[in-house]
């Protein structure tokens, strides 16, 4: 029930709008993320955007994963 999936914001009208998940368009409420902008990725939970995905942090985490994996491989 705490499932939330990344969705791309396509349009915003007031507190509502359309997002795209895996090529499919869905309605979403932005009542919990009023600062959202078209083009942002949001985490969509039961029709509500509960946060805006932080792209910088997403890349940082991937970088960290790669670093850790490198170190893992070196010693193994």
């Amino acid at each position: 029930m705490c499932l939330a999936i990344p969705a791309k914001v396509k349009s915003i009208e007031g507190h509502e709008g359309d997002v795209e998940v895996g090529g499919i368009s869905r309605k979403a409420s932005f009542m919990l993320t009023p600062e959202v902008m078209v083009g942002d990725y949001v985490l969509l939970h039961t029709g509500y955007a509960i946060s805006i995905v932080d792209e910088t942090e997403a890349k940082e985490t991937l970088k960290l994963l790669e670093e850790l994996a490198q170190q893992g491989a070196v010693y193994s």
Partner: protein
Amino acid sequence: MQFIHEYRDPDLGRKLVQRIHRKSRKPARLMEFCGGHTFAILKNGIRDLLPSNLELVSGPGCPVCVTAISDLDKAIFLSHLPQTITTTFGDMVRVPGSHGSLASARVEGADVRIVYSTMDALDIAQENPQSQVIFVGIGFETTAPTIAASIVEAQRREIDNYHVLPLGKLCPPVMGALLKMGETKIDGIIGPGHVSTIIGSRPYEFIPREYGVPFVISGFEPLDILLAVEMLVEQIEEEDPKVEIAYRRGVKPEGNARAQQLMEEVFEVSNANWRGIGEIPRSGLSIREKFSHFDALKAYDIEPGLSREPKGCICGEILRGIKNPQDCRLFRRACTPENPVGPCMVSSEGSCAAYYRYGGEDG
């Protein structure tokens, strides 16, 4: 970047697993709090990839599962009232109550509708002014703001036939209760991802401080979970318990301020009854007096009669992390997803359902 496939890279995963094997020495029991994590761990075979000194145990992070049977009985009672439409998230419908389920109530003529969002429930209320619409308001901090939003929106749209049965629950207090009970040894916690999107990482600070237990908030892709395990192992080996976030693209230390503000406006913290655990102080959400006209507990005399737990079901012990689904003699025999005895076999986050689906021959 779509924030999904990048975190499923099998090559990176393999190397991360090697690293964990190299680093982890101490025997440790890690609890994945979320049912969503249990599913992801079993689905991706992560259990079998970890070194034998690391054990993963499922926690109570399944809102459907922890809903007390007496509370479910209230929802079923309400669904039988005339001129009433009961709306709920899908998983809840098939959970057996003391006498039938919401699904069997529907067969008997009750109008029970599955909704995807609280906004759908509100729309049903607006479209059916001659009926009373009740939303069965289960959920953790992830969902509570969406229930609060529906109540604020109902007020704004002057919808007066919408009521919420408030069954919201809070995660940090149940973690505290489990650690305090000490029935199960927990050496580290894989913390909930989307609950933390809302509340942030700070409400868990008492866990390392008071119980010395490492805590790492994780996302739900396989690399997210492996990263969280790696960080927990680091803390365990270094004997340096703290709260860390492995899911930084989705969780900020401060959480979502707007969502917290909505929750605070509509709900107040109260005691709550958890299935298999009992009453935990300040672990639930009640509707504030200001919005009491949307509170199903105030609007109706709810008398569902005496509740009784399903015979032989060990869902409660599974939720406390002291037993596994395969310890239950009903598992796979009398209890299956088609004919569930307890909620852990119904919910898409229930441990029994996860083991049934992905647990292999032993599961």
